[in-house]
């Protein structure tokens, strides 16, 4: 005992803190914090000869006994006994009785110095003695007792090892435990020997004591539950040893330590360990004399949370590679994972660990020693106890498992390894009984990885599952089988791939063919749709033709009615003529009667000669009267005949328009013309004109051929009386020049079709040099417009562009300004009159209201404008275009024109009204007939006729010499008539329409009648004459150039 104490003092050097191990007996001067608690224990011990010191793990039970109780005992403070004490300290370990024997022998100085053989013999003797009976302990003590009045204290430290290390399956172990407990019981009960028993035990094992009733009773009678240290006591436990060591500690460090410590009694060893480390660090790194222990030292060793881990790592790092591996196995063997984050100690004998690691015990011991050398004490038993293969190796404190990161990892890995091993073992077992197959990946792969990594040994395996060999065999076999199977599978895959390729090829080909069919189907469908669309268009056209046919039929009915009316008129005229004839006849008869009366009177005359002479004279007078009457009657008859012929002429003309057949149509029209002329009808009779027009049209005379060259509407026509050409312009921008070639009119193109060129105005100068064209020519992004001037002397040249016009140009008129060519225009939506010298453009007047059209007098002195307010404005050209209002029409005027040779002018309004006025005399001559707005007005070149074009699709030709006669109405227009012009020779009137074409109309009826006889093949037959002319009229040869046909 003495040596023990001495070595220990040396070993502890000058560090006043023990670390993880408990305080030893001779460190009582360093033990602080439990002053005054020893007495209580001693009282209980003396009274019952037994005391159990119980407390939670790490609460300092052992230290308390060693340093609190034993010194007092040695000091003889126990009054009832002598002062001589022998204290036997033992720990149960794996073999409690053997250990007890060893401890007993350690108190015998002769034993300590004896050689090993002798020691073994002595130990065997004592062990046998202890095991022989329950009084064995008493006997053993009595045998070894050297003095009579000596008291013995058997201190069983770590009593719980009895339960922890006991293998409950090993019967011998169970018996030994029981025997050990009985030994202690008997020893403390034995009256003649002064043997005292003290045990220290973790409070959580108190339940295990219940299986020993005697022991339980003793514990109940005398136990001391070690109280938790108060904060103040903890402070003393820190400051006390520091003071003893001759150092100081700062207040902040104390506070920090107390805070880190918390209330858990388990932390006391950690505190001790940290303080030990702090002290060592401080001792090594003291910067000056008397430097107190401070926070920096504490922080340097990693504080309570890290100190242990760092310390353990220090030890680990001192190992070489082989030892490190052994170390890992060692720690994995003595720990066990329970639950997710919860590891427990698993004390294991050194021999087992060596077997698990597969190394010699010496190698293992050298590793263990690193962890239990003085000042480390990370594993138990402590450094002073020599190790044998039966030594129980344990970690000194469970917190190591929490704090040492490396150990934590090992614990987890061990758990994983065990889990894998157990799974594998189970599978092997199942396989053996035929309930499961061999393993395959991924399990197989994982298991093989496990095998390589952990290199499991038999002993290791058997700790967890006894069938280790079978398990490993199973794993090897699984591996072999899988490899074979893989090879087979690869072969199969290659074959499958080949098959798939062939299939894909076939399917691909099928897809391509299908797509081809699909495309073909689409093409066919598109064709069908196109055909259908065509059919619809055809149908639409057929429908529209049908509508036209209906219209024509209605027209025909109207015409027929008109014809019938005319015939009725003719009939009544005829009746009148007959009546006149009858009257004349009566008069003649009266005259004859008078003559006969005169002749009868001759006899009487002889009688009364004078009377008779007188009577004769009278009679002569009467005869003259009668003759006169006869002449009147004859004249009456002639008049009646003429009227009848004229009526027949009109009826024939109208009838001719309704007849399809060309020859008869021509004959009727021609005969109508002949009667009309012969019987002095109106030479511009509308019906006769119509008859002839439609007849020559049907007979295909080029005189009435359309002028067809514009793709859209024809908006402007112009011709110069002294030129040979006619110019036309359309809404599509095309300008054509028409000339007569033989009987036809043919066109030259002056300007091609252009987008955005709606040409509304054409003008030609009197010398036929310039042609100006304007209209809606939009300049992108502005309101500006232009006028093109073509030089007709160089055909094909580009036009001069006159700029400076706004929006749309509606009228263009050439004139002379100071004997130079000038162009007057109306633009900016009728709000500006401009004059150009063909290079620049100047505004000359701003009308007070919008003008729809302007016209210039033949002498260029007066400009008149058709106001949209229905008024006519006159501008004095010579006087700066001074404006004056000359007439109020009351209706929006759209067209205005000056005659060619006088100040006569004509206007046309939006309701179709036409008026002719003189500048000097505003008594208008009205012409009524048009139903819609007038688009254009022209005087014929000789001023005899006025032509008006209207949107009612007609042109009317008014004879200004006979304003009361019906005008010739030119109806054969497909759509609105925009513009008209007389041909230079005045023989034709041309009408430009909305519907592309220009119609040509002869102005002279004779021109047409001359052509008929050349176009037909025979004269009337007698039957035709009777039907279409009259039965009672004498047959006439209509065309002299053809033979009579009345046979």
């Amino acid at each position: 005992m003495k040596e023990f104490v001495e070595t220990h003092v040396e070993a502890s050097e000058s560090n006043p803190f023990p670390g993880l191990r408990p305080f030893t007996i001779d460190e009582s001067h360093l033990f602080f914090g439990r002053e005054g608690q020893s007495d209580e224990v001693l009282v209980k011990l003396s009274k019952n000869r037994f005391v159990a010191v119980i407390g939670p793990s790490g609460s300092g039970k052992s230290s308390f006994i060693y340093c609190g109780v034993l010194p007092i005992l040695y000091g003889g403070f126990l009054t009832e006994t002598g002062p001589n004490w022998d204290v036997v300290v033992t720990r149960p370990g794996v073999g409690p009785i053997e250990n007890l024997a060893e401890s007993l022998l350690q108190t015998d100085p002769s034993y300590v110095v004896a050689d090993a053989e002798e020691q073994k013999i002595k130990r065997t003797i004592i062990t046998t003695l202890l095991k022989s009976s329950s009084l064995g302990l008493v006997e053993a003590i009595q045998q070894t007792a050297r003095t009579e009045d000596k008291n013995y204290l058997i201190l069983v430290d770590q009593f719980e090892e009895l339960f922890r290390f006991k293998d409950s399956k090993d019967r011998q172990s169970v018996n030994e435990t029981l025997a050990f407990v009985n030994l202690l019981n008997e020893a403390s009960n034995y009256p003649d020997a002064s043997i005292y028993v003290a045990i220290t035990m973790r409070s959580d094992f108190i339940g295990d004591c219940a299986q020993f009733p005697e022991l339980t009773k003793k514990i109940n009678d005398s136990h001391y539950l070690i109280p938790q240290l108060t904060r103040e006591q903890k402070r003393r436990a820190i400051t006390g040893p520091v003071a003893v060591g001759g150092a100081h500690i700062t207040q902040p460090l104390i506070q920090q330590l107390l805070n880190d410590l918390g209330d858990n009694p388990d932390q006391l060893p950690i505190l001790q360990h940290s303080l030990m480390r702090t002290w060592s660090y401080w001792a090594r790194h003291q910067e000056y004399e008397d430097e107190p222990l401070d926070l920096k030292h504490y922080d340097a060793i990693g504080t309570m949370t890290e100190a242990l881990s760092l310390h353990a790592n220090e030890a680990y790092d001192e190992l070489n590679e082989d030892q490190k591996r052994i170390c890992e196995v060692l720690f994995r063997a003595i720990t066990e994972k329970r639950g997710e984050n919860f590891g427990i100690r698993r004390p294991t004998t050194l021999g087992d660990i060596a077997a698990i690691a597969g190394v010699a015990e010496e190698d293992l011991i050298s590793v263990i020693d690193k962890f239990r050398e003085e000042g480390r004490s990370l594993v138990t038993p402590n450094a002073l106890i020599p190790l044998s293969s039966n030594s129980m190796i344990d970690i000194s404190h469970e917190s190591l498992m929490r704090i040492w990161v490396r150990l934590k990892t090992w614990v987890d890995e061990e758990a994983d390894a065990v889990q894998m091993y157990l799974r594998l073992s189970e599978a092997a077992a199942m396989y053996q009984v035929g309930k499961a197959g061999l393993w395959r990946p991924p399990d197989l792969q994982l298991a093989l990885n496990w095998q390589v990594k952990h290199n499991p040994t038999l002993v290791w395996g058997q700790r967890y599952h006894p069938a280790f060999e079978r398990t490993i065999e199973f794993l090897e076999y699984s591996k072999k089988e899988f490899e074979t199977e893989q090879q087979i599978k690869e072969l199969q895959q290659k074959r499958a791939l080949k098959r798939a390729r062939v299939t894909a090829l076939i399917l691909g080909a099928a897809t391509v063919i299908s797509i081809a069919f699909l495309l073909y189907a689409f093409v066919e469908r598109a064709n069908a749709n196109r055909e259908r669309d065509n059919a619809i268009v055809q149908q639409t056209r057929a429908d529209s033709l049908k509508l036209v046919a209906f219209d024509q039929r209605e027209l025909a009915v109207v015409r027929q009615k008109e014809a019938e009316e005319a015939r009725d008129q003719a009939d009544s005229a005829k009746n009148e003529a007959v009546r006149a004839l009858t009257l004349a006849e009566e008069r003649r008869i009266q005259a004859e009667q008078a003559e006969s009366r005169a002749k009868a009177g001759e006899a009487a005359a002889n009688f009364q000669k004078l009377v008779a002479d007188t009577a004769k004279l009278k009679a002569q007078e009467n005869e003259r009267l009668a003759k006169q009457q006869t002449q009147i009657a004859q004249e009456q008859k002639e008049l009646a005949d003429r009227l009848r012929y004229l009526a027949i002429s009109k009826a024939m003309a109208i009838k001719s328009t309704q007849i399809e057949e060309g020859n008869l149509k021509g004959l009727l029209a021609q005969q109508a013309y002949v009667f009309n002329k012969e019987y002095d009808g109106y030479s511009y009779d509308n019906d006769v004109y119509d008859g002839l027009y439609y007849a020559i049209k049907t007979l295909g005379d080029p005189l009435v051929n359309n002028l067809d060259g514009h793709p859209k509407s024809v908006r402007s026509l112009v011709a110069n009386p002294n030129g040979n050409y006619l110019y036309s312009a359309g809404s599509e921008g095309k300008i054509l020049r028409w000339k007569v070639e033989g009987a036809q009119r043919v066109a030259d193109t002056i300007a091609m079709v252009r987008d955005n060129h709606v040409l509304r105005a054409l003008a030609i100068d009197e010398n036929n040099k310039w042609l100006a064209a304007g209209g809606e020519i939009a300049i992108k992004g502005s309101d500006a417009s232009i006028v093109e001037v073509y030089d007709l002397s160089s055909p094909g040249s580009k036009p001069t562009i006159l700029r400076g016009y706004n929006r749309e140009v509606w009228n263009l008129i050439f004139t002379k300004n100071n004997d130079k060519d000038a162009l007057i225009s109306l633009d900016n939506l009728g709000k500006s009159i401009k004059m150009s010298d063909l290079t620049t453009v100047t505004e000359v007047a701003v009308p007070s209201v919008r003008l729809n059209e302007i016209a210039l007098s033949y002498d260029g002195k007066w400009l008149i404008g058709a106001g949209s307010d229905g008024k006519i404005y006159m501008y004095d050209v010579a006087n700066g275009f001074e404006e004056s209002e000359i007439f109020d029409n009351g209706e929006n005027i759209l067209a205005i024109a000056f005659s060619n040779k006088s100040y006569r002018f004509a206007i046309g309004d939006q309701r179709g009204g036409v008026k002719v006025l003189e500048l000097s005399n505003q008594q208008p001559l009205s012409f009524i007939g048009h139903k819609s707005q007038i688009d254009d007005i022209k005087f014929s070149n000789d001023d005899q006729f006025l032509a008006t074009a209207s949107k009612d699709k007609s042109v009317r030709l008014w004879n200004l010499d006979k304003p009361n006669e019906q005008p010739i109405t030119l109806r054969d227009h497909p759509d609105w008539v925009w513009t008209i012009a007389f041909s230079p020779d005045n023989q034709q009137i041309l009408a430009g329409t909305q519907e592309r074409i220009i119609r040509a109309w002869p102005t002279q009826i004779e021109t047409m009648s001359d052509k008929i006889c050349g176009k037909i093949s025979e004269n009337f037959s007698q039957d035709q004459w009777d039907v279409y002319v009259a039965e009672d009229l004498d047959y006439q040869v209509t065309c002299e150039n053809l033979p009579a046909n009345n046979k």
Partner: protein
Amino acid sequence: MNVSKVVFFRFQAALVILILCTLSAGYGQNICTQTLRTARNTYEQGRLHELPDILASCLRNGFTTEEKVEAYKLLTLAYIYLDEPDKADESMLSLLRTNPEFAINEAVDPAEFINLYRTFRTNPIFSVGGVIGPNLTGVNLTEANSTNDLNGNAGNLPGSYDLNVAAHIGLAFDFTLTDKLSFAPELHYSIQSFKFSNDAITTIINTDGTVIPFTNNQLTEIQNRVELPLMLRYTILNNRFKPYVSFGFSVNYLINANIRAERFVLDNQDIRERTIDVTDLRENLTFSALVGAGIKMKFNRGLILAGVTYAYGINDVTASENAFVDPELVFNYRYVDSVFSTNSLRLSIGYVAHIYNPKKRR
């Protein structure tokens, strides 16, 4: 008078009013049809100045859409020939607003009218609509990981990925750039799916030595994504079907990904089926290159779209470091993610309506 009679009378009164309304509406319709005929005749006869008054009331209310279009056309023509260009503009605008798809007939319509029409913006400013369709998705392996890989041989993949069908739905736009080229962004909500299966993971060896597959694992991954395909369409032929080719790229955002795992076990044992969320193991943002072809056919005021698009995944949706993260997939279903991108073939059928805003161009 009891309550039921009152109700009956009210019902009758309502019926009479309803019939009157219907009749008057029909009558109004009839009147306006006649008005249009009158207007047509008036126009033909050239009495243009009468047209605005004839049409005014029916234009306010009474015409059907077709009649209204014809009426506005007549009115526009009348103003053109009455030389009232500002009013003609106004009327043309009304015409185009009534029917933005109104088209001129070059052969028949007067040049003045055609010129005016051309000063208006008549093309759709853009088209918007929706598409829907199935898609077929597969994986494109970058690196094959496998639980079966004994020898570190990446090609040795006992399980296999298969295509699977899912669907997508989305918004579609079409911005006309030129006659042939249009920009077509879309926004899809897309579900894409592909399968993984491995047979005979565990086997039983019979007494006679034959190997019987013991379990079979079927895993179907379903991804919910928001995709933003941005494409250019080039029209190849300008016929009725307007076939086009398209190309572009797509930005895809993964909302979530789940694997539905099934384990079939031989001989009356349980089938374990579970759905495992693998969103965290996937890249959220991926990009695809797109190439496609299809037709766009005019239908009503829009286009019917039908086409296929192939989306080639540019970046991987998985990462090798995530392969073994989920122990459940590894142990229970023997599935370890390979590194792959996804490709999909989509069939989309949809309709986009043209959005017009006619106005006078300067």
